[in-house]
């Protein structure tokens, strides 16, 4: 029977020293980052080099993860895919921050009508299920990876706006902001030079969470055929393209799928670990 004492002891253990989740997460994430950074050097073959003679070959010494239906090396494609996946994750998060943070700062600082209008607009955006908003944006243009990235970024804007606004509401009450106003500093100066530097810690935590959600959502869009297009080696697209060969050549599906799972697990562990160190109170579950 686990008593309150056991739980307290466990929390004590977690508090002392670096959490194991952080170390494992750091290892996995840095491995993926390194693979992505050095991809062209490490990949044994060009990711789009086709070869009729080596179609659908099982894993071997020459092709560690086998080859796909065009005779392309699955290992090379998976390694190159890491770049696209991280590009999607960080790119979409950056877009989301660039749009969401200024709007949130603005709404939280000015209050009044503008705030009311912005928050209502965000409520409408949030009344779309995330994937549907992405689909709606992508339905009308020829698909491509960067469009999917923008769509994923826009999907998460309302969350960031809400967070930035609530943080700003709090900071705007502080005395140094009153001082800045009394000095006659401009609104833009106060927003970006006074408030933003103090608002970033919770925003950074949220942005970290968004990266994995963005990777997963982006891959789902590519999987549905409205993200990256052939011959791209995006993991979602690779999995989608390989489905007809599930029976004859399961390695084409398994390699990108496992790579993606490991990447997301790594980043999630890293985030969990960081949160345990910096802010134990933030470890609440949240929806995508």
């Amino acid at each position, binding site marked *: 029977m686990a008593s309150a004492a056991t739980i307290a002891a466990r929390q004590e253990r977690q508090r002392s020293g670096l959490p194991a989740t952080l170390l494992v997460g750091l290892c996995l994430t840095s491995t993926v980052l390194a693979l992505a950074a050095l991809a062209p050097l490490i990949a044994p073959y060009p990711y789009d080099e086709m070869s009729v003679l080596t179609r659908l070959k099982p894993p071997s010494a020459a092709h560690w993860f086998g080859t796909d239906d065009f005779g392309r090396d699955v290992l090379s494609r998976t390694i190159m895919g890491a770049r696209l996946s991280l590009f999607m994750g960080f790119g979409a998060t950056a877009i989301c921050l660039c749009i969401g943070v200024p709007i949130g700062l603005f709404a939280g600082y000015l209050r009044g009508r503008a705030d009311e209008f912005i928050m209502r607009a965000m*409520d409408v955006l949030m009344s779309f299920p995330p994937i549907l908003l992405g689909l*709606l944006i992508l*339905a*009308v243009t020829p698909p491509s990876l960067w469009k999917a990235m923008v769509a994923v970024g826009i999907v998460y804007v309302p969350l960031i706006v809400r967070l930035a606004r609530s943080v700003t509401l709090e900071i705007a009450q502080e005395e140094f902001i009153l001082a800045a106003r009394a000095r006659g500093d401009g609104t833009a100066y106060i927003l970006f030079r006074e408030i933003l530097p103090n608002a970033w810690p919770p925003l950074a935590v949220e942005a970290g969470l968004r990266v994995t959600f963005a990777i997963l959502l982006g891959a789902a869009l590519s*999987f549905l055929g409205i993200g990256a297009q052939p011959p791209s080696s995006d993991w979602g697209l690779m999995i989608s393209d390989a489905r007809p060969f599930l029976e004859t050549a399961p390695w084409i599906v398994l390699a990108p799928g496992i790579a993606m799972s490991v990447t997301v697990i790594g980043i999630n562990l890293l985030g969990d670990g960081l949160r345990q160190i910096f802010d134990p109170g933030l470890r609440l579950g949240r*929806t995508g």
Partner: protein
Amino acid sequence: MLLYVARRIAWIATTLVVLSLLIFAITQMLPGNVAQIIAGQFATPDTVTAISAKLGLNDPYYLQYWRWASAVLHGDFGRSLIMERPIAPVLWEALANSAILASVAFIVVAVVGIGLGVLAAIRAGGAIDYGVSLFTFLGISIPEFFWGIVLILVFSRSLGWLPSGGLADPGSGFATHAAHVVLPAATLAFALIAHVSRMTRSSMLGVLRSQYVRNARAKGLPERVVILRHALRNALLPTITILAMDVGWLIGGVVVAETVFAYPGLGRALIFSIERHDLPMIQASILVIAAIYCSANLVADLLYAYFNPRIRYG
């Protein structure tokens, strides 16, 4: 409470109107003229003009929107360009299929998710807790479509226990019908079980530390009664609203799972129509899905208000 309900419903109605405007505006940007699509690749310009006139495509946008919106309110979603038949019956059939899939998944999520969460909380710090948190961690990290494909590989291709996709033939028995739902529902449920059990665990832990649970134990009540009657009841309040909110996730999951398993539901209809630029079908299916999501949010809000007197009387 009544005022609150009225306010929420009015808000949902406004949201849906704005959404329909948004859907209409965005789909108007679709490349390619609808008349051109209907007339086909080799139509003469005259034919295209004639069809445009017939469909009222040259009317101002507000008039087109009004025509579309009022038809939708009468249950008429127009005709599909690709399937060349009225959308409404197709849409309702797909919706029924999706509803079966989603409700099976939802029940599994509620039962298994809450069960695992309670188990993990009771045995906090023990082997079961670690097992459950590992499981939930995988659930959150592994993409749904990959998880679905792994299920197909294991249970369909290797073991041959379950069909890998599609729907059973109309004449077949209940078992065959049910077998076709198992894998897609399991795919949908996986990530959500993770989410629900996490939430249940944390709220259950909070309750277990409370004074009244200690009192119940001190009274000498059996542990089973303490857990089920005293702790779980209170711990479930946040979980119930979480469950309702998860419907949004469920909808996203439905789109993916239906694509993986070629399951003829609403999500598949939407992807199919996007691939083929079937404009009226895209508008209709997105609007219906958004309406379902809004209603689910409404239910979540009302449940939350019902269980939280501060809002009920606010």
